[in-house]
């Protein structure tokens, strides 16, 4: 009866070993305790003994080969024994397969990969945005309340926003709820100052419903508010994130800077170029939901979020896929300057199919951006961060950028967005691909 010799775990932390040298030849007789091979573990070169008596029928692993623990490395048995089944079943290094009979035939073909059709967008209505009146006990928008008072309020159906807190920093405590219950559901705010032990601090914070100084509302602010509320309320969006190895792009930027210092190319310019190239291959990312109809755009115009003092603008770089990095850099610089001077035209600001928003310079690692309608997606770009990455099974220092793509699910399905993001990642990790 032939037996399979598997690679042993020769040190507690060993997961694979390199077969340094066979100490036996095929056809040799071995007994239990004889040394079969020298194995290099993660710690040292060690010897693997035979557990059995028999003849070496086959040396499966080759000298120099790295083999996982538990894989077949040799077969022992009686001379002339048929071991083809064992060899076929185990394959070369088949971890832990030795004990199980090899399947006679491949079973039915593997099921086709699941259709790239994620579940339909969940139709859950977005919770209405409620701006709570600023009551007492408010601290940066949070109502401070003791756990007990919170529970009591829930039991009595009392709206905490209507209760004045008498504890430190206006914390609503047990006695405040008791007072509220006694007075029919609401603590009488105007009488707060007269409440027995209310500290002066708490009284001061019991401001009118809208406290603070009113700031004039600019037209830009109004537009931002309207469009983003519209986006949040109407677009069933979802987000996809991917970590990109930034080293190749950083290297390319460095080379560009060396060769064309005055062009001042940055990672953002590379990203715009890569986005546009990928957009050309992903028509759904160029498609927009306009009044219940789908409208596909045929050019890869990229909007770039530019922060200015008064707010935010998104000028458009047209046909970025067809432009060189120097051209993109120069154009963006010029657009940004005009944005700051509030000199952008309607044309500068329309026609984009996807926006890039980069907060990396603030050290933000990743974030969700709100889609800029009628575009169907927006790319949020984080900072380049030092992060250990696994390469070839080892931890090495890496440079990582996290990209987060928010998509309009009416147009772009999960797998479609993911596929786009995959191409974008590939292009950034090998910038040469953009020339393909």
């Amino acid at each position, binding site marked *: 009866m032939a037996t399979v010799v598997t690679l042993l775990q020769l040190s507690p932390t060993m997961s694979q070993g390199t077969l340094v040298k066979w100490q036996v030849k095929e056809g040799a007789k071995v007994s239990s305790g004889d040394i079969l091979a020298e194995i290099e573990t993660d710690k040292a070169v060690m010897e693997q003994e035979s557990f059995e008596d028999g003849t070496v029928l086959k040396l499966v692993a080759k000298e120099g080969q790295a083999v996982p623990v538990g894989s077949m490395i040799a077969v022992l048995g009686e001379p002339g024994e048929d071991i083809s089944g064992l060899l076929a079943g185990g394959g070369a290094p088949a971890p832990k397969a030795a004990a199980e009979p090899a399947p006679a035939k491949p079973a039915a073909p593997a099921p086709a990969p699941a259709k790239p059709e994620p579940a339909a967008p969940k139709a859950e209505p977005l919770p209405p945005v409620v701006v709570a009146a600023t009551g007492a006990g408010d601290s940066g928008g949070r109502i401070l309340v*003791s*756990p*007990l*008072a*919170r*529970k009591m309020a829930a039991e009595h159906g009392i709206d905490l926003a209507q209760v004045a807190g*008498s*504890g*430190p920093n206006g914390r609503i*405590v*047990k*006695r405040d709820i008791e007072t509220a219950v006694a007075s029919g559901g609401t603590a009488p705010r105007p009488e707060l100052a007269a409440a027995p*032990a209310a*500290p002066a601090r708490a009284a001061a914070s019991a401001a009118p419903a809208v406290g603070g100084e009113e700031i004039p509302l600019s037209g830009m602010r109004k537009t931002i508010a309207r469009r983003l509320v519209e986006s949040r309320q109407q677009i069933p969006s979802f987000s996809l994130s991917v970590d990109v190895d930034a080293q190749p792009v950083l290297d390319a930027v460095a080379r560009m800077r060396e060769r064309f210092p005055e062009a001042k190319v940055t990672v953002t310019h590379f990203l715009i170029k890569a986005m546009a190239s990928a957009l050309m291959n992903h028509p759904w990312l160029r498609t927009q939901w306009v009044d219940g109809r789908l409208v596909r755009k045929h050019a890869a115009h990229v909007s770039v979020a530019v922060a200015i003092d008064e707010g935010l603008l998104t000028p458009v770089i047209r046909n970025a896929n067809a432009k060189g990095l120097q051209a993109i850099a120069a154009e963006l610089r010029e657009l940004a300057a005009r944005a700051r001077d509030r000199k952008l035209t309607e044309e500068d600001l329309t026609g984009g199919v996807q926006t890039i928003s980069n907060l990396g310079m603030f050290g933000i690692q990743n974030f969700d951006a709100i889609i800029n309608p009628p575009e169907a997606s927006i790319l949020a770009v984080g900072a380049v961060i030092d992060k250990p990455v696994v390469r070839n099974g080892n931890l090495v220092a890496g440079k990582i950028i996290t990209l987060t793509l928010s998509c309009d699910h009416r147009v772009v399905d999960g797998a479609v967005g993911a596929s786009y993001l995959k191409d974008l990642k590939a292009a950034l990790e090998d910038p040469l691909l953009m020339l393909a």
Partner: protein
Amino acid sequence: MVEMSFREALNKALAEEMERDSQVFLMGEEVGQYHGAYKVSQGLLERFGDLRVVDAPITEAGFVGLGIGAAHVGMRPVIEVMTFNFAILALDQIVNNAAKLRSMSGGQFEVPIVIRGPAGAGGALACQHSQSLEQQYVHIPGIKVVMPSTPDTAYRLLKSAIRDPDPVIFIESEKLYNMRGPVTEDPENLWPIGKADVTRPGSDVTIVTWSRMLTAVALPAAETLASEDGIDCEVIDALSLSPLDLHTILESVKKTNRCVIVEEGWPKVSVGSWIAAEIGLKAFDHLDAPIERINQKDVPLPYAFNLEEIALPRPADVVEAVRRVCYAK
């Protein structure tokens, strides 16, 4: 009840248990001819002889380990450490042997040893001799930790500890040895390990404490609060820190909705911090205020009398904390 000192109560418990069980013996530094560094073993050598009241060399790991060895073959050693500051030298024996033998033998052995002695601030003893180290032992599964607060609990708990089948760390406050109080006259009236005492029932706030802090800090603070603020404190004497009578503490907090924990030792990773975490987890919805903790200041205890005084918990600290959690001025 009969009145006696804390020290006499311990002595009485020891003598009675040695009389009752021939396998009980007392070993430690100066327990025999010197009559105990704190005179707890006064007269025992004369009564029981030098095989049962044994003066050990100054070799804490050695004689604590010897006691553990004797215990796990059926004896009932009471090992006195001159102070728990010195028991640090025996921590390997306590942690790796006393606490582990039952478990690592799959239940074949038990270790009915008592390791007892004083701890805490004794009055200008400076930093190496003033430490409250109960949390070292409470942290370790497999050993029990008790800290009596009065002559009566000292007497009744020591008898329980000697009869308990597990290793018991029995920590006495150095400053309590002279405290006098009534002690039960019934030699079988033991205080069960794992049971707290509601020393002062009250309705407005729960004060959890143990050992010397009960009479030196918590109860005086409660009296001040009752008379000056009309705040009615419930004071719980934990007595047994491991196992801890969490049930009694939680029931009290659910009633009062507030808790102040008074502990002689330092604040970080302490018994009090553990109790606070348990309350936060298990009585969250009953809390009307944050749990406050009064501890020794987080410094090695200085010798200078004035500095020592302000480093240790005082009744006024508790009064202030209780006022804060009661939202009183």
